């Protein structure tokens, strides 16, 4: 067992972490908002934890709090990302579809360039020597942090879906104007969905900084945005298990393909192409489809046009 954890522990934790990041994108998607901002909030959360855990300014706080410092970093990351989520979300969520996706890509890129150049984030080198959470000896022990977080998130997501708020999210996703006409205020719920995703990504970042031991601008890039989007779409975007399964699978594939050496990233690309072609509802969606086959859909006779930007109504 110890051997197994020694060898695969890091990978297992990474799979759970990927699933959590997938879920952070899933929440805004529930309200129909395609946001690619998760890596930005993930990076901010990680920087918050890294700075709190290494910067000499906070030495006194660390001394007093001891292990209580780690929950404090999660809280700080959650608060800061929540606030940032509102600040970015309120103006950005006036945009729709691909425009929102592009605005969030811009947000991630700006954060990346800024963190690459600020002294407090360690510039291009980043921050290293981040102490292990609760004095963990092995990387697999981080499952005690990421595992419960995943369970809590899934429970929360499930409760949310059944609640009034979750129904409002779905109403907005299906037809924002109709939801608005029925008295569901779209802006408030869209910002809420966006902020939930931001807070989750921030906490995952704060837990990941000690896990990875080092934090730098590479943590929040466009590539990561796309990887996380792929987690959700390949896994399935209509079911809470989709992002988890997609995140775990797409993180595992490059590892499983290690024997292919240099070809594995090529194969990884092909997996994305083939999966988006043959599993349009995602893996979880396809499995559900076996149980409850959906009514046959008529393919549109014209290419689907991405929604135009609009200033709301």
């Amino acid at each position: 067992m110890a051997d197994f954890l020694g060898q695969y522990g890091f990978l297992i934790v990474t799979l759970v972490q990927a699933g959590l990041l997938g879920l952070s994108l899933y929440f805004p998607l529930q309200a129909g908002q395609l946001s690619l901002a998760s890596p930005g909030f993930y990076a901010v959360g990680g920087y918050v934890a890294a700075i709190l855990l290494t910067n000499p300014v906070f030495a006194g706080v660390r001394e007093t709090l001891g292990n209580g410092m780690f929950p404090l970093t999660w809280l700080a990351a959650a608060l800061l990302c929540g606030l940032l989520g509102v600040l970015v979300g309120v103006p950005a969520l006036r945009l729709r579809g691909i425009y929102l996706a592009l605005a969030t890509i811009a947000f991630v890129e700006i954060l990346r360039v800024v963190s690459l150049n600020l002294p407090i984030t360690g510039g291009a080198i980043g921050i290293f020597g981040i102490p292990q959470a609760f004095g963990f000896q092995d990387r697999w022990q981080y499952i005690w942090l990421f595992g419960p977080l995943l369970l809590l998130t899934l429970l929360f997501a499930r409760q949310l879906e059944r609640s009034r708020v979750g129904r409002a999210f779905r109403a907005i996703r299906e037809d924002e104007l109709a939801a608005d006409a029925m008295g569901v205020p779209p802006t408030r719920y869209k910002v809420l969905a966006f902020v939930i995703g931001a807070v989750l990504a921030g906490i995952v970042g704060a837990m990941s900084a000690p896990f990875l031991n080092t934090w730098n601008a590479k943590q929040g890039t466009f590539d990561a945005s796309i990887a996380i989007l792929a987690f959700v779409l390949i896994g399935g975007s209509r079911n809470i298990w989709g992002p988890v399964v997609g995140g775990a699978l797409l993180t595992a594939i490059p590892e499983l393909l290690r024997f292919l050496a240099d070809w594995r990233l090529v194969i990884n690309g092909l997996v994305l192409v083939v999966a988006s072609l043959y599993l349009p509802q995602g893996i979880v969606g396809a499995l559900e489809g076996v149980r409850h086959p959906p009514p046959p859909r008529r393919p549109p006779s014209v290419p689907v046009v991405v929604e135009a930007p609009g200033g709301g109504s």
Partner: protein
Amino acid sequence: MELSQFLQNVLNGLAIGSVYAIFALGYTLVFSILGIINFAHGAVFTLGAYFTYTLVVGQFENNGLLKGINLFPDGSPFSGTPWLFALATLVGAVVAGLVAVLVERLAFRPMRARGADPLLALVSSLGVALVLVNLIQLLVGAEIYNFPSDAYGQVQPALSFQVGDRVVIVRTVQIIIFAVSLVMLAILGYVIGRTKVGKALRAVAENPGTASLLGISVDRFILITFFLSGFLGGLAGTLVGTAFGVAGPYFGVTYGLKGLAVIVLGGLGSIPGAVVGGLVIGLAEAFVPAQYSAYKDAVAFALLFVILLVRPQGLLGRAQIQKV
């Protein structure tokens, strides 16, 4: 700012901005027809630069599967005079166009045939980009490749003129980039605005269903669009490559992202918008003061963010009315 410095910045900005413009035109052409952003466009940009490099130099450094292979033992037939280099650039761009056609067949057409979610087509195009970029890395390694310094041969040396007490310098390669971009824009403007092919393209962009009722083969014009898009992307790749060297397989990633900023700034799907957007971002970057040059790459995205908030349809885009 002194006048000489101002002029220098304007000239630098116009040169790089014109490349952004022709690169972004490739994106916007595809968007106007399919309503989808083709994320493989950055990879096609990189490929264009490598194809031209292969034609001109014919061998690769010490990494990758192609190392040690010399395509032209007797010297490349494409090197020596500026005209031969121009020919190689053209061939490189054509091959890049053909790759874009291949991308359409592999990543977009099957999706269209199934009436899939446009988001999935986006992921699929990302998959193709991943495949292309990593294939390049496998084949030629991750080194920086510099085009031969005499690529443009004995074209007249760089321009320089005195303004006040300082000298403003324009590099030869900048003049060429600007001129080629202008010519390309003129040709494209003519093709789209005045020819029968352009008319059909506009009809497909407007409404594919109606266009196909009128006897226009939509699939064929989508292929043409992708070819044009790849051609422009590949051409931009070689132009940037000659100015800065071809910086590895990920060469196109930054341009791919900036290209997105350019087309949104100008207005998604708008051809004049792509040109204006490219020039605006090129100029804005040129005016970033030297001590803040590290923030240069954020300029395009900051502009993009601001414009999305103020005018979501972009500078020259059309606002659309929402209907229930």
